[in-house]
């Protein structure tokens, strides 16, 4: 379970360009559910995902992940939680060019100290699940948008995280590929993963796999809609 209590996030505090991205957000996200944060650009969706995913710290407030308060943890522990608990799917995919699909997928697990061979087997298995076996040795720059997105999801799964965080995952996909992506995320939810998505795409928020839709505007949680 993930719990946010009165979270506030201010960028460039004290400077003329000070910006309040999140203003006192409180929310409880149960595990094994798919939650969508929807809202216009600049509403604070991505910031909330970053805060939950231990990528940045809140200016004030508390976040607990599986009962553990994470806001006051030093960077090392925060990174450890990020590595073990969260898998990230970015808007721009953020795959590293010049290296193979397989290496991209293995990359998040390198610092964990797993044996290269077992890591390779694991990554091969994930790519096989996503129908990317034939592309394993290809460079990522040769992939289509849909393939790149699936590689990005495969990479998010390499550390077997409990939570998948996806930021605008359909931004660069057409409708068909977007629906395919939601199918994949739905399947991951069925496997027991918690899925958190930031998106302003109706194809995402209206997907039948979604359990909770949180509307955000100007850094405030406006509406929390339970689907089932």
């Amino acid at each position, binding site marked *: 379970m993930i719990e946010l209590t009165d979270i506030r996030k201010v960028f460039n505090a004290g400077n003329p360009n000070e910006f309040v991205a999140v203003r006192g957000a409180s929310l409880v996200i149960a595990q094994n559910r798919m939650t969508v944060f929807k809202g216009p650009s600049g509403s604070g969706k991505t910031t909330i995902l970053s805060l939950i995913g231990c990528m940045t710290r809140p200016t004030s407030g508390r976040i607990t992940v599986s009962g553990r308060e994470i806001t006051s943890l030093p960077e090392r522990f925060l990174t450890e939680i990020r590595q073990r608990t969260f898998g990230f799917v970015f808007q721009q995919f953020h795959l590293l060019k010049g290296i193979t699909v397989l290496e991209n997928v293995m990359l998040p697990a390198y*610092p964990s100290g797993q044996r*290269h061979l077992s890591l390779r087997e694991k990554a091969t298995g994930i790519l096989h699940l996503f129908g990317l076996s034939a592309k394993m040795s290809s460079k990522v720059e040769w992939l289509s948008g849909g393939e790149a997105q699936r590689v990005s999801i495969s990479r998010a799964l390499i550390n077997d995280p409990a939570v998948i965080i996806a930021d605008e995952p359909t931004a660069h996909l057409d409708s068909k590929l977007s629906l395919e992506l939601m199918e994949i995320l739905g399947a991951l939810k069925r496997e027991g993963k918690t899925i958190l998505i930031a998106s302003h795409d109706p194809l995402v928020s209206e997907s039948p796999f979604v359990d909770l839709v949180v509307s955000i505007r100007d850094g405030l949680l406006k509406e929390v809609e339970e689907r089932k």
Partner: protein
Amino acid sequence: MSRIDKHRNILDFALSSLLRRKRKNIALVIMYTSLIFILASVIFFTEAIKREACILLENSPEMIVQKTMAGRHDLIPDNYIRSIESIRGVQSVRGRLWGYYYEPTRRANYTLTVPEHFSYGTGYIAIGKGVSRTLEAGKGDLVPFRAYNGSYVSLEVADVMTAESEIISSDLVLLSEPDFREISGAPGGFFTDLGVRVRNAKELPVIADKIRRVLPDTRPILKNEIVKTYETIFDWRGGIVMVILMSAVFAFVILAWDKATGLSSEEKREIGILKGIGWETSDVLWLKFWEGAVVSLTSFFLGVILAYVHVFLASFILFEPVLKGWSVLYPEFRLVPFIDPFQIMAIFFLTVLPYTAATIVPSWRAATIDPDSVMRL
């Protein structure tokens, strides 16, 4: 899960990262290798030649006494031996016969020396490897020498010498006293100079002073003075090359500085992604460390190996005119390989460490960014 596997994984990625920027990194390795090659060549050469000089002088007497005439070296009469022997503290005095022989057809200069005990006798010579190479002569061959009066003296090669130092033996022709006098025209009762051995080395300056007083037309030369002169000459020559090298060093410093002051936007983006997918700041720094270490160690070893080949197998061909130009050494000789581990360490610390540090510093700055910046890339 282990630390070794972690580093193996990171090193593996560092290697593929380097291969991604193949052209840039190959150019870097070439430049870096050239710098280390030049540095190591100069250091290897100056040290090896200084060592050769020391070996050369190891068995020479503590003091050499030359007779001078109008400031020039002149033959010394044998009655000087008795005068010097009578000075207290002198152990022995030996008249030495040596000189140079120019062979116009081969355009080579040999050193003719009469050793203290020449076992082969009159009519025979023992020659150094260099002489043997130049003359294409081996054991049993007859070598004609043109004497001072225009006549020819043929001597048989009894031995081709090998020695710890090629400088000692390379241009050397050992022969008997009668043959030397016949070729050079040195009259009986005269020597080239005198080698003086003393009982107590501490008394050398006093004895030298006494010799100067008893025989005012002589010049005593102490062994340690010769050693110092050699060292100064080669240190100075090494210094000249080093000054020329400064431009290369500066170019390298600029390159390192360029690396230290900025990463390309692509590199920064990659660091952001690595942080975003769960790498710690220290993991990123390890990656950059391995990248820097692979480049600098590859260049270091390549540079040192090439320098070794250049100095000890290719006779220092690129810088020969600068470093050996003070006295043309005929015939060609090869330096005996000698490497001081301290110098290797010095080159290592002067090049590998600064470069590796230069690759880590900017990455450290980039790696301390909040991983959430990747969400906004």
